[in-house]
C-alpha cells in the first residue's frame, strides 16, 4: 500500500521530543516543588540535612506510597478503592492471629500479603464482576474489613511478633537505606514498567478514557479492572506487613485515615481523579513531597491532626487551583 502513489501528506510521529514534553509536564512542577521544600526545610531546621534523619523521614510515606502506586493505576482506569486502610487492618489482624498460632516469619508474610490479595479479589468481584459502583462498594468493604478486625480484637492488641519479623519495617538493606525504601523503589520501577511500557498499562489508560470504546477495541475491561483491584489489595497486604513490623503490634485502628493520604498522593502526583491520565514518576514525586512536608512539620512539632488538615486542604487545592485558573 505504501508504494502506491498517494497524495497523502506524511504525518510526523512526534512534533515535540519526549524531553521537551517532560519539561512542560506536571511532573516538572512537582520536581520544582520538591526542591523548594527540600531547601526550605534545610534552612528552617538544622536537623533536616542529616542522612539518618532523612532516612527516618522516608518511613512517613513508604507504606502509603506503595499503595499509591497501585491506586494510581486504579484511579487512571476510572475506579477507586477506599478500603485500602481497612485491608491493612484486616491483614495485620490476620498476621496477629497467625502469630498467636505460632507461625514463623515466612508464614506471617504469606498470611499478611495473602489477606490483602483476598480483600482485593473481593472488591474486584463486586466491582468488575458484578458491575457495582466502586465508591459505594469500597465504602462498604472499608467498614467490613476493619469491622472484622474489631470483632477479632475488640479493644485489645496483638503484640510480641517474633524478632526476625522486625526486619521488614525496621531493617536496613545497606547504610541508611531501609528495607521499606528499597522495596518501594523496586516496586516503583515495576509499576513504571507496567503502566508506561506494557500493553496492560495501555489498556488501563484506554479504559479510563473511554471504557466502552476500550471494550469495543477488544480489551477485556472487567478482567483488567479485576487485576487492578487485586494489585491494590496486594500492595495493601505488603504495606500491612511493613507497617505491622515497624509498629511491632496490631490494633484494629491501625492505619486509620491512610486512604485519604493515599488518594491525596495520587491526585497530587497528577492523576486525573476522573480517570484517564497520570504517571508513576508523578506518584513518586508526590510521595517525596508529602514525606518531606510531614517530616518538616514534625521537626517543628506540629501535631498529627493539623498535618491531616494540611493533607485534606492539599487534596482539594491540587484539584481546585488548576480549575480556578483554567489550566487543565
Amino acid at each position, binding site marked *: 500500500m505504501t508504494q502506491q502513489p498517494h497524495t497523502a501528506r506524511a504525518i510526523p510521529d512526534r512534533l515535540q521530543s519526549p524531553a521537551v514534553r517532560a519539561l512542560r509536564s506536571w511532573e516538572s512542577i512537582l520536581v520544582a516543588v520538591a526542591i523548594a521544600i527540600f531547601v526550605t526545610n534545610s534552612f528552617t531546621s538544622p536537623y533536616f540535612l542529616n542522612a539518618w534523619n532523612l532516612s527516618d523521614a522516608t518511613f512517613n510515606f513508604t507504606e502509603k506510597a506503595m499503595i499509591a502506586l497501585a491506586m494510581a493505576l486504579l484511579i487512571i482506569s476510572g475506579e477507586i478503592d477506599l478500603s485500602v486502610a481497612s485491608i491493612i487492618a484486616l491483614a495485620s489482624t490476620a498476621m496477629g492471629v497467625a502469630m498467636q498460632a505460632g507461625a514463623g516469619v515466612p508464614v506471617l508474610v504469606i498470611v499478611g500479603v495473602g489477606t490483602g490479595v483476598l480483600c482485593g479479589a473481593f472488591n474486584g468481584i463486586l466491582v468488575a464482576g458484578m458491575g457495582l459502583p466502586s465508591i459505594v462498594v469500597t465504602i462498604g468493604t*472499608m467498614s467490613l474489613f476493619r*469491622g472484622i478486625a474489631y470483632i477479632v480484637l475488640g*479493644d485489645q492488641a496483638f503484640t510480641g511478633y517474633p524478632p526476625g519479623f522486625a526486619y521488614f519495617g525496621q531493617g536496613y538493606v545497606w547504610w541508611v537505606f531501609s528495607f521499606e525504601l528499597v522495596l518501594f523503589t523496586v516496586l516503583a520501577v515495576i509499576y513504571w514498567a507496567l503502566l508506561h511500557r506494557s500493553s496492560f498499562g495501555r489498556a488501563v489508560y484506554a479504559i479510563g478514557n473511554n471504557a466502552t470504546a476500550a471494550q469495543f477495541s477488544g480489551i477485556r475491561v472487567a478482567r483488567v479492572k479485576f487485576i487492578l483491584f487485586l494489585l491494590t489489595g496486594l500492595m495493601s497486604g505488603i504495606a500491612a506487613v511493613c507497617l505491622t513490623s515497624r509498629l511491632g503490634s496490631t490494633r484494629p485502628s491501625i492505619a486509620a485515615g491512610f486512604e485519604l493520604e493515599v488518594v491525596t498522593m495520587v491526585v497530587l502526583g497528577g492523576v486525573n481523579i476522573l480517570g484517564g491520565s497520570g504517571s508513576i514518576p508523578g506518584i513518586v514525586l508526590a510521595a517525596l513531597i508529602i514525606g518531606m512536608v510531614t517530616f518538616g512539620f514534625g521537626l517543628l512539632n506540629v501535631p498529627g491532626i493539623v498535618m491531616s488538615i494540611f493533607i485534606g486542604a492539599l*487534596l482539594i487545592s491540587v*484539584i481546585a487551583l488548576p480549575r480556578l485558573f483554567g489550566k487543565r
Partner: protein
Amino acid sequence: MNTLKNRDVLLAFAIVLLIGGVAARFPAFVRPGNLVNVFNDTSPLILLAIGQMIVILTKCIDLSVAANLALCGMAAALMNGMGVPLPLILIAVVLMGGALGAFNGLLVWKLGIPSIVVTLGTMTIYRGTIFLMTGGAWVNAHQMSTAFKALPRTMLLGLPVMSWVALLAIALFFVILTRTPLGRSFYAVGGNPHAAVYTGIDVGRTQCIAFVISGALAGLTGYLWVARYAVAYVDVAAGFELQVVAACVIGGIVIAGGAGSVIGAVLGALFLGVINNALPVIGISPFWQMAISGSAIVIAVALNATQNRPKGRIILKEVEPT
C-alpha cells in the same frame, strides 16, 4: 414510584421481623419504653440519612457529615461555655452546619470537583478544625449548663425532644421532596442531568442546595449529640458517615442518583438502629457493629443493582417461555 414502595414495604417487614426475632428471646426489647429508646438512639442517624439521601439523589456523596456534626457540636459546647443563650446556639449550629455544607457544595458547583474528593478532604479539615479550636481538650458534662444538656432529653407527649426533631425532619423533608418544585428538581438533577438543563434547572446549584441541607441537618444533630451524651471532643461520631451511607444504601437510595425516598432513608436508618440496639441485648459485642453495617452496604448495593438492571430493548414481540 411503585417499585420503591414495594421495596419500602419489604424493608419495613424485615425490621419488624428483626424486632420480633429479638423479642422472641428477650420480650423486654419490645416494651414501649425500650422501642422509644431505640428510636431515640437512631434519631441522629435518621437526621443525617435524610440529608445524605438528598445529596445522593443529586448524584453526589457527602462524607464530611460526621466531621461537620462533631465541629458544630463542639462549637455549640463552646458557645454554651461562653454563656450564649440556647436558642441562639440552635440557630448558630444550623447556620454553621449549612455554611460547612455550602463550602462543599460550592466546590462541587463552581469548580466541578467530584464530591467524593471534596468531602474526603473537608472531612479531615473540619475535624482538624476542632483540634485547632480546642487544642484537643474535651468539653465535659460539668462544663455544660443544665438547660443545654436537658433539651434533647426533655419529654414531650411521651417522646424525648430529640425524637421529635427527627419526626419533624421526616415530615418536613417528606413534604419538600414530594410536594415542592425544589424536591422535584433533586430527582430531576440526579435522574437525568442533561434533561434537567432543558427543563430550566441549574444542576450545580441544586447540588449545592443539597449539600447545604445535609450540612444544616448535621449541624443541628451536632448540638443534639453533644448535649445528649454531655461530652464534646475531637473524635465525636468518628466514622459515623459510613453508617449514614449504609442507611441510605439499605434504604434503596440509588447511588447513581435520581431514585430514593425519605421513607427509604428512614427505614434504612431504623434497620441499622434496631441492629445496633439489639446486639447488646442478645449478648453480641458492640464491636460487631462496624462489620455489620459494612456488609449491609455491600449486600444492599448488590441487591439495588440487580433490581435496577436495564431490561434491554426487547425487540422480539413473542418471547419464548423458558
